[in-house]
């Protein structure tokens, strides 16, 4: 309901992938926090990143533009970005933008893990 935003990062013990779990409204500030977390993971060498939006049901276009920066960074390292638990509105928006051509979308975090690890 309010505009507070929190983020958690979970790393695969074997270092194959990392999950960024968001909580709250993804506006400019929320987007920036996701961006920072992703850039840190990329700097640490992660090439497979999952963003779990289960607890973020509201996003604005400024927040989304940060996600594009992450995709740009991941393309440079030939990494794979995946999203899971998108609301129908967010999925519709990502599709309209063409974002789903550069990042995979999965129902659950588990599906996303299997997805980013496939043909690895």
């Amino acid at each position, binding site marked *: 309901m309010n505009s507070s935003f929190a983020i958690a990062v979970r790393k695969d013990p074997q270092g194959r992938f990392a999950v960024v779990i968001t909580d709250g409204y993804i506006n400019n500030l929320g987007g920036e926090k996701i961006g920072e977390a992703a850039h840190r993971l990329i700097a640490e060498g992660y090439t497979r990143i999952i963003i779990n939006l289960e607890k973020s049901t509201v996003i604005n276009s400024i927040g989304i533009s940060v996600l594009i920066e992450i995709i740009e960074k991941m393309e440079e390292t030939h990494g794979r970005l995946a999203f899971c638990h998108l609301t129908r*509105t967010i999925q519709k928006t990502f599709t*309209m933008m063409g974002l789903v051509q550069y990042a995979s979308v999965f129902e659950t975090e588990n599906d996303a893990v299997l997805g980013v690890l496939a043909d690895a």
Partner: protein
Amino acid sequence: MYHAEEPREVSLTIPIVPNMEMAATHTAEAVLRLMRFSSDQIDEVKHALIEACINAFEHSESREGNVYIKFFIDREQLTLTIQDFGAGFETDCVPRPSLVRKLAGSEPKRGWGLVMMESLMDDVHIDSGPQGTRIVMIKKRLEETAE
């Protein structure tokens, strides 16, 4: 109980303050739920409304400092207007965003607000000029909920 036949209007005026678009989405959610729009439709309206509000916040340069929102609901549809008394803009001069160009670094990452509104609403009309900007957006009721 509410009868969809009677048109209803709700007005909300919010000051240009960061995150104040949340007041608009919460009002929208409560009003549209009472007016029996579906959850998915409400969610789409909320996201379109956020984009219109943050545009007014970011770009309008309104001295008077408010955004005026009206929900007009009748049997067929919601008509939502978002108005500011800012500087306005040339609607014809806004380039369509392209993800390919954005990823190639040849255009800024931003610039998705207007296309989001268009994609989430059934109709979007923008009136903008030196007197400010007024966006009129329409969301039609789904067949089942209109009954």
